[in-house]
């Protein structure tokens, strides 16, 4: 894991920045969100993929690509969370003023 992070730090950073940007926008976005039921399904899918990766069920290159995808996705989600939270915090600070 540490090895993958050091080897791919640039891609992880890119995912993180992407996440930050999307998270920042998401707070004020007026478009359609993912329905609750679908998001549970997606969460279940991601959990299943994480389980497969941890169990090392997929061999060779596809296994590596899965690991890489999950890491980038985790980095993206973290970026989104931080971005959204920052935007929310910024808005709440501006509102009273």
């Amino acid at each position, binding site marked *: 894991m*540490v*090895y*993958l992070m050091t*080897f*791919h730090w640039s*891609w992880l950073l*890119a*995912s993180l920045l*992407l*996440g930050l*940007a*999307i*998270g920042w*926008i*998401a*707070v004020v*976005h007026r*478009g359609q*969100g*993912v*329905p*609750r039921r679908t*998001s549970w399904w997606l969460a279940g899918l991601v959990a299943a993929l994480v389980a497969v990766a941890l169990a*090392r069920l997929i*061999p*060779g*290159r*596809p*296994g*590596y*690509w899965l*690991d*890489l*995808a999950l890491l*980038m*996705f985790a980095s*993206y*989600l973290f970026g*989104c*969370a931080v971005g*959204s*939270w920052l935007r*929310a915090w910024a808005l709440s600070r501006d509102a009273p003023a």
Partner: protein
Amino acid sequence: MQEFFKWSSKWWPGVIPLVMFWAIAAWTSTSPLETDLAARSTSALKDTVLDKRRIAVAGRDVTFAADAFSEDGRRSAVASVEAVPGVRLVNDETRLVPEAKPFVWSAERDVVRVTVGGNAPLPASKGRLLEAARAGLAGVEVVDQMNMSRGAPPRFENAALLLLDQIGKLKDGKVTISDNKVSLSGMARDLGGREAIAAALKNLPEGFSVAANEIKAPPYIFQAYKDPVAVTLTLTGYVPDNNVHAAVAAAAGRKFFSEKVVDNLKASVGAPGGFAGAVVPVLGALSRLSTGTLEVSDREVKLSGDALYDAAAAQIRAGLGKDFPQGWQFKADISVKPAAAPVDATVCQQLFSDLLAKGKIRFESGRATIDPDSAGLLDRLVETALRCPTANIEIAGHTDADGEDAFNQTLSEKRAQAVTDYLVKAGLPANRFTAVGYGSSQPVASNDTDQGKAQNRRIDFVVR
């Protein structure tokens, strides 16, 4: 929290560029990652002794195949690859090096190369063996056909190094170690090489023994050529040591009374047993030939040439080889020189005088037994006597003045008679010869000096 879920439901658009990032990352990084992991795995195994190591990386999974030299070594090699950071799975395709039974190693030399083959216990010892072969055989190509195997006997490497040392002493041949038995075959490069190898084999490490040593030595050659035109005797080849060399040279000087001895002999070990005992008598036989070649190759003696008359040829064929040392063989290819043209009595006398001026008929001290060294001279006298069949010849015996006159008189008569007997045995009619003894009554030099006495002790041929 409720809000957080609301925001997160709107995070999905970023997944599209994220997937693109992922595709690019996977596309560009897979190959460098695999290369990096392969390098790290290889360096993790740097200090581990393995044969036929093969590392293949697919994604983060390493397929590791190798032959290990022990179970512990095999396990620790797999563990060190597993411990490499970034490696996800190790497909363990390692196995133990096969055990050889019997453990056979060999080195074979032919004209241009040395082929080292069979089993070697470890890559390091294989390397040392090849290095030793290259160092010991400068300029000879060394071909490696060794395989790794377990089951080498203790101290195998020392034994193999010692044998590689011996390969240098061979012209061609093969050395083999089978478990702890050593066998050698082939031809030594030099005289004495076989003996040197046999001596070196005494230093084989403990536990090893020689099963077969079939190293042959190159033939031990001694040659002598009597050239009647140049009046020389040429000696070439080998003699065992300086003492034998001196003895052979002295014998040649005595037996070849008129020839100049050209001595090209070299001393070398490796002579067959009884060398001097065989060579000295056969030189005597050569001295009786008009022209002849003597070839001694190991224990085989070949004498060829022309005898001076029939009886001499028969005597040489029959007589020699009887008193040879055990195991020696004698082959004679003796023909008879065509008889020389007859001459009249005066010329005959001249020829006798010439011969007797060059050499003297020798006897055992104080006795009438002819010294075998004089056979060559006697044969020449016989040949001359055959050329004047009508002449009657007086064989005159003389002594020096030492001792009693009566004894000297008898001795001179007996010696003259011994020479006459020799001539008769050679086929000359007895009635042509008169044996006369003069004792010390007709000195040709002073009896006061040893040199003079030696001149006075003589046999003269006088044509009547």
